[in-house]
């Protein structure tokens, strides 16, 4: 029993964080402006570092690490508000590894590892909620070919993706499935969103009987559920990172800002708020690291574990971002100081991959079923 990382994992995190500090330079005020959505340089720097090869097994030319090894890395990416295309590509790598056919793996893994393949995740729909089984985008047979119809919203960096990983419902069985749709002709219609976080370059994808190559279908209900769980866990990791940065900025400010003749952090009204934020962040850390362990090791209660992490960390990060702005006072509300970048990204992640209410309902439904099973046995 050891709920801690190995020394090598911490060392890897530290060197990755140093690399990120260079690849993602901070502004003069120490805070990030991620409104520049052209992230080619950052992407290439991370590819050169080998980030995209980490999850790919050695027999496909990768490093063969697991999501436990990556959890601290995802947290660091969250701290610097790294473009979501980076983590989306990591999530897609996991799905391809577990559900794609051999041919697809052989052709994609070298390109992913080299950083030549950006994959954007397209799950959300305007009228489908979060449950993959409730999605309305449909995959149907027309004669001897498959085609896809429906709309996906809030796809990060949709226009710059090489592939979209799309969740759809199979018309014949009504089962959800996952598709890897290449960004080439014939392509879906693409519309840019106006969203709270412009640095995500969100787009809407409109599929109108788009022909689909059956070889790119990652089949089965389990693929859709796994995509949901892995995405939610990675979102928790990113939320944890950005909450940690928001908290640290608030604490630093509370140590320095003097009012009434002493640093405001000396006053209980501020100190106790910071303490509550720290407890919430540390607790999110416990929940999120455990979820990463669960998606890497697939225990029977994986989904429960993921729902605990995402519901708790989502709300925690939201409240830490809010509190951080409050502790910074009037300065906190300025565009220039940049705290809003964390808040903006937080809102995107909080309402992606299941919000707190969705995950709690999943959690309580599962708990009631487990208690009933226990009572039936007794």
């Amino acid at each position: 029993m050891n709920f801690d990382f190995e020394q090598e994992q911490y060392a890897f995190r530290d060197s990755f964080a140093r690399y990120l500090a260079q690849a993602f330079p901070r502004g003069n005020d120490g805070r990030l402006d991620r409104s520049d959505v052209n992230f080619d340089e950052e992407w290439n720097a991370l590819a050169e570092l080998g980030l995209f090869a980490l999850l790919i097994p050695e027999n496909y030319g990768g490093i063969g690490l697991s999501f436990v090894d990556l959890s601290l890395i995802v947290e660091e990416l969250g701290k610097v508000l790294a473009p979501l295309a980076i983590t989306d590509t990591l999530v897609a790598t996991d799905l391809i590894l577990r559900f794609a056919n051999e041919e697809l793996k052989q052709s994609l893994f070298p390109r992913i590892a080299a950083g030549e393949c950006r994959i954007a995740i397209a799950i959300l729909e305007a009228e489908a909620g979060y449950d993959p089984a409730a999605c309305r985008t449909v995959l149907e047979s027309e004669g001897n070919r498959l085609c896809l119809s429906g709309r996906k919203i809030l796809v990060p960096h949709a226009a710059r993706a090489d592939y979209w990983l799309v969740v759809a419902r199979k018309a014949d069985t009504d089962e959800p499935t996952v598709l890897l749709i290449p960004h080439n002709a014939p392509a879906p219609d693409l519309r840019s969103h106006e969203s709270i976080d412009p640095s995500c370059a969100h787009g809407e994808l409109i599929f109108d009987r788009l022909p689909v190559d059956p070889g790119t279908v990652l089949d089965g209900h389990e693929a859709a559920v796994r995509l949901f769980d892995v995405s939610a866990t990675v979102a928790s990791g990113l939320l944890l990172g950005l909450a940690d940065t928001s908290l640290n900025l608030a604490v630093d400010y509370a140590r320095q800002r003097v009012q009434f003749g002493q640093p405001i952090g000396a006053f209980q009204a501020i100190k106790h708020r910071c303490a509550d934020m720290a407890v919430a962040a540390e607790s999110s850390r416990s929940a999120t690291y455990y979820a990463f362990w669960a998606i890497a090791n697939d225990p029977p209660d994986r989904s429960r574990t993921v729902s605990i992490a995402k519901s708790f960390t989502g709300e925690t990060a939201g409240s830490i971002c809010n509190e951080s702005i409050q502790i910074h006072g009037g300065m906190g509300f300025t565009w220039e100081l940049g705290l809003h970048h964390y808040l903006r990204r937080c809102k995107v992640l909080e309402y992606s991959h299941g919000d707190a209410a969705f995950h709690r309902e999943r959690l309580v439904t599962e708990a009631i079923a487990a208690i009933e099973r226990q009572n039936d046995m007794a």
Partner: protein
Amino acid sequence: MDFSYSPEECRFRDDLRAWLRDALPEGWGRTVFEPEEEEERAQFRLQWDRKLFAGGWAGLDWPTQYGGRGASLIEQAIFAEETARARAPMGLNIIGRNLAGTTLLHHGNEAQKQRYLPQILSGKEVWCQGFSEPNAGSDLASVRARAVLKDGRFIVNGQKIWTSFAQYSQWCIALVRTDPDAPKHKGISFLLIDMSSPGITIRPLKQISGESEFNETFFENVEVPVENLVGGLNEGWKIAMTTLAYERGPEDAMARQIRFGQELDGLIVWLSRQMRDGRPAIENPGLRQKIARSLADLEIVRLNCLRSLSRLLNGAPRGADTSMIKLFWSHAAQNLYETALEALGPMAPLVAGDRLAPANGAFILSYLQSRAFTIYSGSSEIQRTIIGERMLGLPKQRI
């Protein structure tokens, strides 16, 4: 990161489970419960302490030379989990084992260890804690109970309050002022006081739950031999901090989350059988959200404990993270019992003794008891100050 247990740890768990099955009465926790009358319950709990000792399960982490088992932190966590899971009684000598004993192991001299530790483990001597006073609560360092050293003995005068189990105790760990002129943290000493000494008066205090676990304790010219001083004269504050770190530690929270979880499961079962406004009460979406929140919180208490234990195992000192653990579990538990009352709805006000009271009033009793969680062992406000100053490096307030 590894959540599996070694074969030795699994064997430890199996042995403990088997022992608990035999040691607890048939139907325990389902049809057979602790005595309801307080004095009887205290004696029942003391018998349990002695049973644990006889079975070789007392003082798990203590060195074998003092009658302990020399168990690892993981085995302690397993012990906390399994005894909670079996709904085993709380012992009566909790303060003896967790606080007095642990503090003596760290700061006691050899003679003190030899004299007191075996008696604590065997349940022969029960201990209470004389730290708080009417004017020294959160500001514990301002204790005023005086101890004057005279002819090889301390003469103690003063009053302690919230002394849990004083009425059942043979011994008391007490913080007393031995130098009134020194700065307040530097004039305190840590004494072991024989509760049968002349001059001690105990007056029970009735709690909001209706129980009288704690007391006011008065000391009037109580003589304490000088060899009952732990550590050096005026060095009591540092020693008290050790005591408090163990009071708030992950071993304690590990057992609590299981007991809270059992009550939450019980609540879910009760709700499944209950109609409310024409439909099963368990289908109320607002309630489901709150129940889920508590399910998540309790799992996070467990995970926080496992991370803290792992840090300790990997060599980190016991630090302010125990404050985080305590702050989180205490508020999580209060939220849980608020939700429980909301779930009981119109039945909520019924308490034990009324034939319609859900679970014979267990939920509402736990709710009342839970109001103490954020006050004892250092109030939430004190924990937040500790976290703010020691973990986040925020400055102390200048007055």
